């Protein structure tokens, strides 16, 4: 064999040898065991820490909530859908709190009116109109949205107490307590609300707007004189407008 060829073969062999050694060290151990990939990568993916836990763990401690949840419309919803992943909370419940949101926007994520939502799948509420004064949780128990409403309805005997109104209409109460009407019960102006309590969306409360209605208490000669009630001459005082055009009904000394 000529020298050149022999040299060439030697060089070639060295390169091949180098290549094979390099390959031996560089290619990962389990590469190709199952396919053109590192078989260990499967385990690597499995080892990822999980964050959303089994909900049986929730009901172990929060039995009351889970019991009430299992009767309502939210019964199939996982706790962590609203409260976030529970892995840290179960490690140390006192330090790591679950997420909690009582904002209207939070409920609106599912319940806001949207053409894309099927009305048979989910109850939809026009959040720009539906009782905008209050938080959803004031009237609805988030764990079982019907329960709180049922409680309200079952308290019919307390129908004269403003407390039952405040449950849902707390914003109005805040305005009312600031002003002169704070001692006037809601029913005095809005009438009895038995039906409204039963189904608030279907039966609305009476909303007075006529001058004569205010005149019942405030009109000279119409209402019986009583201490502390301001008397207005309905025939003279700004006769072109309604009272509520200027005065806020719940706090009449504030003007619009």
């Amino acid at each position, binding site marked *: 064999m000529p020298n050149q060829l022999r040299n060439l073969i030697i060089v070639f062999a060295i390169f*091949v040898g180098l290549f094979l050694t390099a390959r031996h060290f560089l290619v990962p151990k389990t590469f190709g065991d199952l396919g053109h990939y590192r078989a260990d990568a499967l385990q690597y993916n499995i080892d990822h820490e*999980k964050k959303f836990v089994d909900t049986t763990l929730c009901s172990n401690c929060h039995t009351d909530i889970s019991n009430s949840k299992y009767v309502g419309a939210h019964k199939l919803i996982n706790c962590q859908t609203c409260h976030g992943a529970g892995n840290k909370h179960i490690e140390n419940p006192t330090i790591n709190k679950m997420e909690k949101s009582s904002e209207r926007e939070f409920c609106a*994520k599912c319940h806001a009116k949207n053409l*894309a939502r099927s009305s048979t799948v989910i109850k939809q509420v026009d959040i720009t109109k539906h009782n905008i004064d209050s938080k959803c949780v004031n009237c609805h128990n988030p764990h079982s949205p019907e329960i709180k409403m049922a409680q309200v309805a079952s308290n019919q005997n307390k129908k004269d107490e403003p407390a039952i109104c405040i449950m849902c209409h707390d914003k109005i109460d805040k305005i009312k307590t600031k002003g002169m009407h704070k001692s006037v019960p809601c029913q005095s102006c809005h009438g009895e609300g038995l039906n409204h309590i039963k189904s608030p969306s279907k039966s609305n409360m009476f909303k007075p707007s006529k001058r004569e209605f205010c005149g019942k208490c405030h009109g000279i000669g119409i209402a019986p004189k009583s201490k502390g009630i301001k008397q207005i001459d309905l025939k003279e005082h700004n006769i072109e407008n309604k009272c509520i055009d200027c005065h806020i009904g719940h706090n009449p000394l504030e003007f619009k």
Partner: protein
Amino acid sequence: MEKENTKVSSRRDFFKKSGAIAGGLLLVSMLDPLKQIKALAGEKPKGKGAWYGIGVDLEKCIGCGSCAKACKTENNVPKEPFFFRSWVEQYSVTANGVVKVQSPNGGVDGFKQPVLDKEIEKSFFIPKSCNHCAKSPCEQVCPVGATFISPDGVVLVDETYCIGCGYCVQACPYACRYLHPVKHTADKCTLCYHRIKKGLAPACITVCPTGAKIYGDLNDKNSDLVKFIKEHNCTVLKPHLNTKPKFFYNALKEEAE
């Protein structure tokens, strides 16, 4: 003449030797890389073991974005609004056929109640994530074998081996991949491989409030997914690409196909 003979013999010799060397090389390489060659030929275990897929009933999807949010939490997906393993899109079709697609922050914060547009004729949500294609283009193009289809049909990324070239991001027809801004490797839905292997449902399916999304084993005739497919008229996205996706949509509208 004699000279010629020697020449011939030496040449023959050379061929013999080089042939032997080549043969030897081939033998050496056959000892272990044969598996790789086989794998390259696209042999995939079908009919035995699990073969996972996903199903969504779009009639039930309310676009709450819980799935997108849970996915970010579960899988440590970067918070920025352009990295998603799972996200929700809202399609709105106007009466004159214009299709608008919106996905504010991937639906993580939910969809705002829209000011109802009279023009809009219909609207629907579509949750999206990796389709776990049986013939996945991302796996096909990966130069190092860092993206692969697991024996149970889940398309996974080997983070430690990925070189971050981003070829798979280009190859995916469903825009399901992104380059992780910190790790600089490709990242995508793993069908919560760490959960399903422990018998738990993927995070997105765990949190779905309406039960719109399900997953299951396509090889198991009694699995939820197989039943779901049988009972509904499911379609996949971009069927003409022949990627054989395993993400089945019920009630997929033509505008989104």
